[in-house]
């Protein structure tokens, strides 16, 4: 009888566990499929100045209805913006129906899809992943399509366009740029600083009592902040052919020194990742630097004070800002079909021309024409952040290049968390490890993707 009551309890607990597991499943699964049936939002997306949307919406005569799979990593609040844009495309192009899927663990998903030959027709690839995905036979060259879509290097900032080229061939077209952004509490910092001196004054003025002028974590995004300062002081990540890390330069030490000083003068030591965002949201922090994707989280409705976003100041003597970029690419297909490729080109062109709609999710359009359009200029705070993307820095287009940043991240973290005090030694050590990884990648991957 005791055993019986006991097993009943156990059963209830197990059931509760199953429910909890189900709850966990929905948060981690994160696959949002937007139905292909068109929404009613057709007319709301006005084509932007310069983009002749109507002109490209025609499939070759022998193609009937085409269904396209489109994958992206937009599992956060940005997903619905892309979903709406896809719906508008479907409504405007009845003979092309795009099904969008947003995935977490994105590159693992793409890898397993490639292994099982079930890749989508169109996919978003981050700028620093284009070469890796090209070399791993996930995406294919699209030089022909670039001509069809009618874009060229002159339409984008040079660095972001170059990120889509691998071993002499084009693999992707940039959709957006998401730069490091300065968020400031306008109740504590009246006018946002634009230079190093102004920054120090503003941070000093906002540091009093429990208030901190500027917060730096000891994890993400400090490697990105270091990289930005490195370039501002005239340094660089790698040598010209990407075989050697060069961040252990005088500029590198200067950048790291600046961060260490800023941490001890205005910040708290040893903050975990995201702690600066949470502290900022509590209203006791003057300024933080994080990705532009945090805009809705820490400004406007997201906070109870006057939270604002603007371009990061220029601390060193050259303009430079760390940034990521979402690029549009065509995954490898075993049964290549000209109709689907043509449809993909039409879809990509539509996304580029209407990237102002996407920029509402907290992105800067990569296309110069869209950034210069009156509609975009009226969009705040994106418009005030946009000029900084002209000097956005991107890693060289080499396979496995993100691996080489691992040691750098480790070095910056060790300095910011106080376990390493010799800045030069930290950067030297990271450079030695990165050089080994670069050499390993070179022998591993060879000079050109197998598919070329």
């Amino acid at each position: 009888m005791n055993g019986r009551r006991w097993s009943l309890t156990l059963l209830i607990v197990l059931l509760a566990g199953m429910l909890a597991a189900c709850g966990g499943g929905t948060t981690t699964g994160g696959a949002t499929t937007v139905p292909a049936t068109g929404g009613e939002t057709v007319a709301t997306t006005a084509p932007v100045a310069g983009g002749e949307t109507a002109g490209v919406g025609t499939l070759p005569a022998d193609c009937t209805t085409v269904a396209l799979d489109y994958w992206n990593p937009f599992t956060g609040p940005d997903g619905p913006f892309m979903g709406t844009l896809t719906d508008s495309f479907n409504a405007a192009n009845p003979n092309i129906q795009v099904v969008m899927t947003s995935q977490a663990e994105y590159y693992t998903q793409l890898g397993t899809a490639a292994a099982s030959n079930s890749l989508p027709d169109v996919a978003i690839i981050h700028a620093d992943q284009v070469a890796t995905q090209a070399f791993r036979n996930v995406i294919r060259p699209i030089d022909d399509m670039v001509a069809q879509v009618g874009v060229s290097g002159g339409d984008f900032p040079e660095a972001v366009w170059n990120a889509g080229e691998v071993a002499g061939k084009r693999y992707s077209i940039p959709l957006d740029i998401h730069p490091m952004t300065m968020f400031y509490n306008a109740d504590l910092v009246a006018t946002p600083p634009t230079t190093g001196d102004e920054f120090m004054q503003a941070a000093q003025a906002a540091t009093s009592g429990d208030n901190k002028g500027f917060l730096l974590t000891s994890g993400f995004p400090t490697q990105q902040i270091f990289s930005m300062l490195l370039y501002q002081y005239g340094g660089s990540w790698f040598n010209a052919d990407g075989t050697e890390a060069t961040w252990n330069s005088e500029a590198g030490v200067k950048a790291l020194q600046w961060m260490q000083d800023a941490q001890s003068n205005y910040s708290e030591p040893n903050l975990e990742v995201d702690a600066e965002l949470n502290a900022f949201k509590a209203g006791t922090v003057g300024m933080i630097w994080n990705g532009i994707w945090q805009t809705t989280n820490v400004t406007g409705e997201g906070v109870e004070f006057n939270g604002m976003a603007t371009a990061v100041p220029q601390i060193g003597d050259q303009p430079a800002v760390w940034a990521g970029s979402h690029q549009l690419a065509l995954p490898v297909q075993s049964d290549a079909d000209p109709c689907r490729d043509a449809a993909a080109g039409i879809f990509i062109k539509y996304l580029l021309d209407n990237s102002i709609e996407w920029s509402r999710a907290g992105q800067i359009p990569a296309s110069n024409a869209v950034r210069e359009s009156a509609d975009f200029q009226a969009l705040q705070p994106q418009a005030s952040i946009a000029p900084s993307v002209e000097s956005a820095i991107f890693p060289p287009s080499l396979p496995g290049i993100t691996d080489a940043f691992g040691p750098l991240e480790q070095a910056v973290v060790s300095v910011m968390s106080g376990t390493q005090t010799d800045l030069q030694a930290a950067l030297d050590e990271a450079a030695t490890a990165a050089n080994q990884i670069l050499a390993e990648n070179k022998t591993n991957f060879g000079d050109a993707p197998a598919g070329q």
Partner: protein
Amino acid sequence: MATTARQEPVATTRAGKRRRVSITPYLFILPHLLVFALFLGWPFFYGLYISFHNFDYLRPEAQRFVGLGNYANLFNPASVQFTRFWSALGNTLQFVLYSVPLLVALPLGLALLLNTKTPGRNIFRAIYFAPWTLSVAVASLLWWWIFQSQGGLANYYLEALGFDAPRWLSSMPWGWFAVVIATVWWTAGFNMIILLAALQDIPAYLYEAASIDGATGWQAFTRITLPMLRPVLVFIVTTTIIASFNLFGQPFFMTSGGQGIALDGGPLEPVMLQIYREGFVRNVQGSASAMSFIVASLMILVSYLNFRFLRQKD
């Protein structure tokens, strides 16, 4: 002696029944054998094969035999893999050292307390067992909320009591405190249930006899309870060591996805996370397989020693 006596009849039976070999027993184990061969046997040997190659499952064109190269690299102090792998393995061993004693002693104490006729004991049993039914992501996030520096519960109360609040999730050795506390809370209930079942199997007359002979409670515990629990304790210690070796999710989720102190080569990066990164972030699956085999050998060795050590006392 006993074994030889037993062997003889077996041998004669086998000889006598050789002619009518029945396939029925084999059919009974066939389903399990198939599943075992498919999901354990095949991956094991394929993993061994991968560890001798330069391997990326998406680039068959780049596959080439490197012999023991991947293993040699892990023993070459100048390689990046050497530093990362051994530092991560050291971290995992530390975690085993911190967590296993707690995960055996605490559940034993709880099981002893709940093996009484206290009113409401079933409610307590359910309460202590409940966290085990959560997924690692949920358990880790809960503790992330408690330990995070911006208004987390732990530091809120520590500061209210006048203590210096440490940065649990971004500095050492506090990172281990956070991960070990979260793990103990999450998994102690499972060991408690098993020990409780074992305690209920100990016949009551042993304790009655002991009390008639004038044994104290402590004597009854050391002379009756512990010896009777030994087989179950061996099981608990072994499975807990294996579970602790497999540490991955708690440091991963509690540092926002393996950031800061749980980065590549960081002081809170467990070896399983390093293997995952080598295999599925860097996509160097040959090297990752070699790491797996070294860790697996170590786990087999530790489990073997553990069985031997605890059995010898019998």
